[in-house]
């Protein structure tokens, strides 16, 4: 009897089948929304169930054995380069497998309600299914190229879904921006692949990880450059400094897409990649320090921007960037389990936050639609006091907010604290890690602050939506609140996956991931905290969260807010933060404008129109015409002339072989 693990291909192919079916429907029966809902959600639910079975089977059958690799066919047999299309089920990929299919299934359910009235319903679900397919390829790929296929595929789906409402130029531009930013990162990924192949001669994870300890010197330049290039790829995909600017713009897509792609799954691919290649990063301390440093900086930087955003989704977007920074801090300092743990918990609470905001936006949009007003349904200044209308949404979002802020007992507290504690523990080696810890703690304070701000402005205080609109505000349908409740349960309980060492039943996820992380951790110094210190850190983290929440509650006055259309412009520091430190403008001035200038003035007018068109295009046409004239002299249609040239050619050939 075949082992249940072998059914892993079904997990991948179910969403792909859904993509094909929904794509067909979107072309030929675009109004058949019932079929789309059943197929789109059904394949995800099926995939989740199969994934659970596969992971349980894998846990039973291959606990200590090598990862189960299933080779399907040979993809690139070129000389010494042998790339197979193969999936790898091991402890790391099984965690991601469950997160992607589980959270993905919930978000699909939510989308049924959220996108109900959209004319592109079938197209939306086709893209979403395709995204899940590529994400699973990314997660399960047993070699760098297969992973890269998924990596590019999710980028494509991200582009398609950000620009889902492409009839508005801003949305289409946001899609292009995400695509181009990701290309910069993919360049790094590709370079890293080439360098790995050059050093090791193989690209499958098993071979690379087995041979890396002998092929590279610890801290050598080769491994450092490889990992830095890999991290460039991660920075593009996971929106880290300096490539993070695409993620806030990506909020132009439908909100469930933001939840699935730009919070829970795709943007965490970079963290997954670092955790997957942990042995390489562990052998390159400099790169790891860069990863941790960039992560910490991004966490703080994005958190400061989030403090002053008015668009509810922008706040969450910068919050995502910030939390991704935490994850990179975790994997950068060698706490791979902590990074993955935060990835899992973040998937729950950030998906919950996004879906909650989606439900708010959905209701507000609906209300504006009823009263024919054209206000921004995403601006928090137009909200306020919504808790009266949407108690369920407000309740679950408060749970998520407390989780991300780091209130004890909720999942975000444990995962974030684990990262900070691990950072602190390595402070004994170099003061650098203490600095990272300080940055991370400040970012945690800001996180608690801006999330509380979001909640206060959205759900509390007086209502600023408008008199008439209030009549149309109500709780979202159950198909949208249902997934929220499930995610809220996950948000509360996911912390139990990996409790800190000082609590009983601790470290379950750590033990589970050990076969994967031990490859890397053996290069890292043993760092542990005394129980007293750990208690102190836990206390400090709690205090920081409490200060952030209470500070926000005391400092902010929702009553003073006016709706967005009447709001005065920002000034001073507020303006700097509101305009996101002008990073987009700086990039525009430093990169985009010179490039446009170079393209237009030099490449277009001089090189293209002058050299290529002049010498190339018109030159070729002139040459062709001249050759044509010559040819008419040779080929004038008279057989006699042909014979003449034939004989001349024969004589020339004989002249040549005569010697």
């Amino acid at each position: 009897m075949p082992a249940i693990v072998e059914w892993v291909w079904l997990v991948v192919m179910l969403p792909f089948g859904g993509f094909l079916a929904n794509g067909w429907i979107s072309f030929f029966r675009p109004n058949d929304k019932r079929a789309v809902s059943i197929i789109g959600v059904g394949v995800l639910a099926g995939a989740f169930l199969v994934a659970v079975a596969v992971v349980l089977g894998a846990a039973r059958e291959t606990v200590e054995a090598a990862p189960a690799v299933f080779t399907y066919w040979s993809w690139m047999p070129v000389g010494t380069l042998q790339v197979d299309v193969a999936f790898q089920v091991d402890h790391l990929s099984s965690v991601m497998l469950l997160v992607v299919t589980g959270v993905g299934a919930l978000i699909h359910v939510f989308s049924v309600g959220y996108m109900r009235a959209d004319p592109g319903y079938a197209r939306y679900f086709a893209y979403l299914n395709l995204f899940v397919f590529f994400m699973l390829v990314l997660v399960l790929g047993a070699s760098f190229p297969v992973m890269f296929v998924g990596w590019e595929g999710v980028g494509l789906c991200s582009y398609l879904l950000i620009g889902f409402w492409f009839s508005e130029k801003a949305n289409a531009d946001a899609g292009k921006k995400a695509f181009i930013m990701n290309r910069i990162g993919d360049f790094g990924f590709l370079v890293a692949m080439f360098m790995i192949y050059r050093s090791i001669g193989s690209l499958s994870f098993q071979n690379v990880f087995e041979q890396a300890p002998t092929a590279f010197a610890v801290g050598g330049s080769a491994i450092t450059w490889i990992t830095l290039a890999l991290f460039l790829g991660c920075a593009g995909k996971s929106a880290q400094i300096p490539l993070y600017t695409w993620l806030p713009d990506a909020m132009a897509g439908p909100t469930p897409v933001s939840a699935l792609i730009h919070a829970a799954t795709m943007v965490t691919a970079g963290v997954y990649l670092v955790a997957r290649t942990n042995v390489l990063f562990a052998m390159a301390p400099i790169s790891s320090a860069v990863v941790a440093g960039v992560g910490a900086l991004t966490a703080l930087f994005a958190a400061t921007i989030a403090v002053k955003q008015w668009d509810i989704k922008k706040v969450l977007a910068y919050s995502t960037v910030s939390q991704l920074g935490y994850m990179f801090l975790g994997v950068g300092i060698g706490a791979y389990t902590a990074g993955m743990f935060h990835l899992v918990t973040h998937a729950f609470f950030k998906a919950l936050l996004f879906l909650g905001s989606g439900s708010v936006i959905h209701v507000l949009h609906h209300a504006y639609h009823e009263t024919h007003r054209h206000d921004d349904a995403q601006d928090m200044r137009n909200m306020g006091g919504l808790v009266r209308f949407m108690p369920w949404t407000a309740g679950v979002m408060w749970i998520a907010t407390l989780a991300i802020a780091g209130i004890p007992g909720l999942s975000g507290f444990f995962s974030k604290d684990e990262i900070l504690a691990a950072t602190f523990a390595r402070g004994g080696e170099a003061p650098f890690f203490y600095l990272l810890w300080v940055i991370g703690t400040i970012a945690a304070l800001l996180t608690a602050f801006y999330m509380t701000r979001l909640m206060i402005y959205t759900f509390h205080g007086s209502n600023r939506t408008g008199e008439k609109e209030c009549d149309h505000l109500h709780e979202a349908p159950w198909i949208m609140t249902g997934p929220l409740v499930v995610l809220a349960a996950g948000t509360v309980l996911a912390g139990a996956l990996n409790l800190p060492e000082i609590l009983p039943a601790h470290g379950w996820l750590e033990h589970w991931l050990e076969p994967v992380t031990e490859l890397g951790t053996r290069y890292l110094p043993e760092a542990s905290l005394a129980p007293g210190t750990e208690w102190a850190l836990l206390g400090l983290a709690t205090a920081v969260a409490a200060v952030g929440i209470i500070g926000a509650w005391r400092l902010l006055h929702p009553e003073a807010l006016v709706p967005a259309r009447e709001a005065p412009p920002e000034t001073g520091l507020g303006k700097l933060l509101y305009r996101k430190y002008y990073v987009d403008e700086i990039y525009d001035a430093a990169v985009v404008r010179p490039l446009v200038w170079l393209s237009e003035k030099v490449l277009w007018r001089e090189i293209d129109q002058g050299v290529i068109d002049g010498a190339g295009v018109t030159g070729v046409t002139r040459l062709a015409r001249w050759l044509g004239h010559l040819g008419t002299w040779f080929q004038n249609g008279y057989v006699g002339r042909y014979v003449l040239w034939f004989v001349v050619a024969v004589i020339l050939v004989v002249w040549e072989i005569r010697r």
Partner: protein
Amino acid sequence: MTQFVFWTLSGVAILGALLCITGRNPVMSALSLVLTLFALAGIYVLFDAHFIAVMQIIVYAGAIMVLFLFVIMLLNVGRPDAGSDVKGKVGKFWAGFLGAALIAEMAAMWRLLPGESFRLPAGTLAGLTAQRGAVGLIAEPLFRAYLVPFEITSVLLLAAVVGAVVLAKRKL
């Protein structure tokens, strides 16, 4: 004696060829070509190729050239009132020049002749002819080593017959 016969026949062959390409009347050209073919048959005999010589007369001079003459007369190409089909001065120049150039080049390839070591002893072929007979000499390789090409030739001829019939039918 052999030398004399060879040179005489060669002269006749070349003369016939020249008449063939210069003659105004197509019938005249065809008959000149028949002359050349007969002379060549004689030369073949000198080279111990008796069977081929007979074939040359029967197939070439007999069958093929008769076909030519038949078509010429059928189409009545050689009417006296029709003008010459010989090209003008430019055509003559190119024909003469290229023909001469070809001869010169082939003369320059003289040293590519097979060396003495490759050649059979004198009289070998004559001996074989005496031993196997004129037909046996050629039948031996034709029906052993070259049997498949021989059979393919028959298919080729069949195809040619069918093709000729189809092409020459009145209604295409």
